[in-house]
């Protein structure tokens, strides 16, 4: 969180929000850079929506302050903030046509009549709804209604566009298409997007940077790859993607080597890690399923290898999840790419295999 202050369009400084006894957001510091696609990611109840609503001005922080474009937003009403929001329910006004919905935000601030029509048409073209201006919202599909909500917010040319779970109401295929669409749109308009989502795929695939939240705290802020490959802690490691987690104890830790004694796996030698706890301390080590390779013959030297029996195979077409019961107890999940159509035979239940992975792919997670 030591980003340079100059290019931050949103600065969240020590913001806390309490609802009675409940603390929804606690001492959050966050800078969002101008022009980036930023995601607030976390399970429900983690405070991400409350944080977004504080940016929009629907909630006031109990403590701390929010700056947008360098200006303190404390006490500034939603209708005077340089941000616009796409609501989870879209909130497209049912009694107005698509055109009137998009024009509403311009009319209420007294935009010149001659300017309204071209700007509304431009915004509708941006979301590919040029021919839908005279329709009423109940004549539109969910995806189209969402585009209206987008156009309605973008026509205001906000400094920041806030999106509250914008894709949650769409079916899977449409959701994927809209993900790409939103990224394309964000690139073409160059406006900062802040999206709230509980869907990690959505956040990983769309955002430039992601803040992972839990219990009102920001646990990690990073680009998607860093978040996935170098999660800062157990929560992030577990929340983002799939993970094989083993509990153990540090056997040796110094500048040259790190060894962890894991129940069922034995002693595992890892590259030295300055952050790792001292000898005798409990520690978790984790490896992503796609980093685990399966072999019918003995695996190559230098990898961590264990024998196990296939307990279950979940076939997804492009990939299969293979669940192994390792010989000494723990179970292990490996993702196998079904890259070769002719590869015969596929792994089957009951088969005994070698599971192997590179010790560098281990994540060391403290308490």
């Amino acid at each position, binding site marked *: 969180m030591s980003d340079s202050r100059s290019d931050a369009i949103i600065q969240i400084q020590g913001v806390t929000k309490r609802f009675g006894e409940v603390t929804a957001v606690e001492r959050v510091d966050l800078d969002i850079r101008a022009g980036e696609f930023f995601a607030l990611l976390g399970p429900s109840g983690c405070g991400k929506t409350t944080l977004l609503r504080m940016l929009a001005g629907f909630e006031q922080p109990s403590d701390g302050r929010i700056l947008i474009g360098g200006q303190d937003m404390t006490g500034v009403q*939603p*209708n005077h903030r340089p*941000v*616009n929001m796409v*609501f989870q329910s879209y909130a497209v*006004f*049912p*009694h107005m046509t698509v055109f009137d919905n998009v024009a*509403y935000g311009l009319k*209420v601030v007294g935009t010149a009549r001659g300017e309204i029509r071209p700007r509304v048409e431009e915004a509708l073209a941006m979301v590919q709804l040029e021919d839908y201006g005279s329709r009423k919202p109940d004549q539109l599909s969910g995806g189209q209604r969402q585009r209206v909500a987008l156009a309605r917010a973008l026509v205001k040319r906000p400094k920041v566009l806030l999106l509250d779970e914008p894709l949650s109401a769409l079916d899977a295929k449409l959701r994927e298409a809209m993900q790409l669409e939103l990224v394309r749109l964000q690139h073409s308009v160059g406006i900062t997007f802040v999206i709230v989502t509980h869907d990690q795929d959505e956040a990983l695939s769309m955002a430039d940077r992601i803040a992972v939240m839990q219990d009102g705290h920001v646990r990690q802020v990073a680009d998607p790859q860093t978040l996935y490959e170098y999660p800062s802690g157990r929560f992030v490691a577990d929340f983002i993607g799939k993970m094989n987690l083993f509990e153990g104890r540090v056997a040796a830790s110094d500048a040259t080597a790190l060894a962890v004694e894991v129940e069922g796996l034995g002693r595992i030698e890892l590259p030295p890690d300055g952050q790792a706890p001292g000898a005798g301390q409990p520690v978790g080590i984790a490896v992503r399923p796609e980093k685990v390779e399966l072999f019918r013959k003995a695996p190559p030297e230098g990898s961590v290898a264990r024998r196990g029996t296939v307990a279950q195979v979940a076939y997804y077409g492009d990939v299969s999840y293979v669940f192994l019961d390792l010989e000494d107890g723990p179970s292990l999940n490996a993702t196998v790419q079904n890259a070769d159509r002719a590869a015969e035979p596929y792994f089957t239940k009951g088969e005994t295999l070698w599971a192997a992975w590179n010790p560098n792919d281990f994540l060391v997670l403290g308490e």
Partner: protein
Amino acid sequence: MENWRKHPLVFWAFSLPPSFWLIVFFFVPLTLVWGLSFSEKRGIIETELTFTLDNYLRGLEPIYLEILWKSILLAGGATLICLVVGYPVAFAIAFASERWKPWLLLLVILPFWINILIRTYALIAVFRSRGYVNFAYEDLWTAANWLVGLVGLSLGERFVPLSLLYNNVAVVAGIVYAFFPFMVLPLYANIEKLDRSFMEASLDLGAGHWRTFFSVVFPLTWQGALSGIVIVFIPALGAFFIPDLLGGTDSQMIGNVIERQFKSANDWPFGAALSFLLMYATFFALALRALVAGRRGAGALDA
């Protein structure tokens, strides 16, 4: 479950009691009065069905049309006041915390627990020259008079009470007081189910609170307002004891005229004709409402 249609016994068991009720206590009396409106008086209590239209023609004489028009104005004014005051009240209840909501609703409904006649008499005690409003006013007047007396001025020889009773204003106040809950409840029901994000979206797009109310909240809760208007206006139009108790000589409503035909004037056929004229006017208003609601409903709200 469409099965009940297949069991005639169940069907009859469910539909007979309400049908019986409707026929015996609604259609039969209504038909009798309808017949009466085409009858002529033959004696003190005897009437004869002669299919005459004289009663209706008499009801359309300027003097009665004028009273009907006046009734519409008084009832309409009262309805408008109920609407203007009812919106903020309904809003306040809908936005109150879950803990307060039932209590606030109870406060709105509470007056129903007392007979309307008693409540109207109570209004007399509030409004008359030796009533509570005037007591408070007198205290204020006396204090103000004493104050200006300090600088050698006077507000007048003595206190003159406000005449709050026995005029049109008192009638309107009485109607508003009696029917106010009928306006608040449908409004509350509509505002309560209105998605809050519509209001937030409007604010977010730069509209102020007034603009949000007139451009978003009102059009989306108009159905509730319409229901409120109908169920306040119709009984208000037929009110008779409120103008009787609170009104003066010039604040008679059509209800008073009808009541008089059945009682002191003892002209039931004419009273029946007037009743039906009032009912036709009401039907006309209802048809208008259905028309407006139908047009707005088409394409306004999706489920």
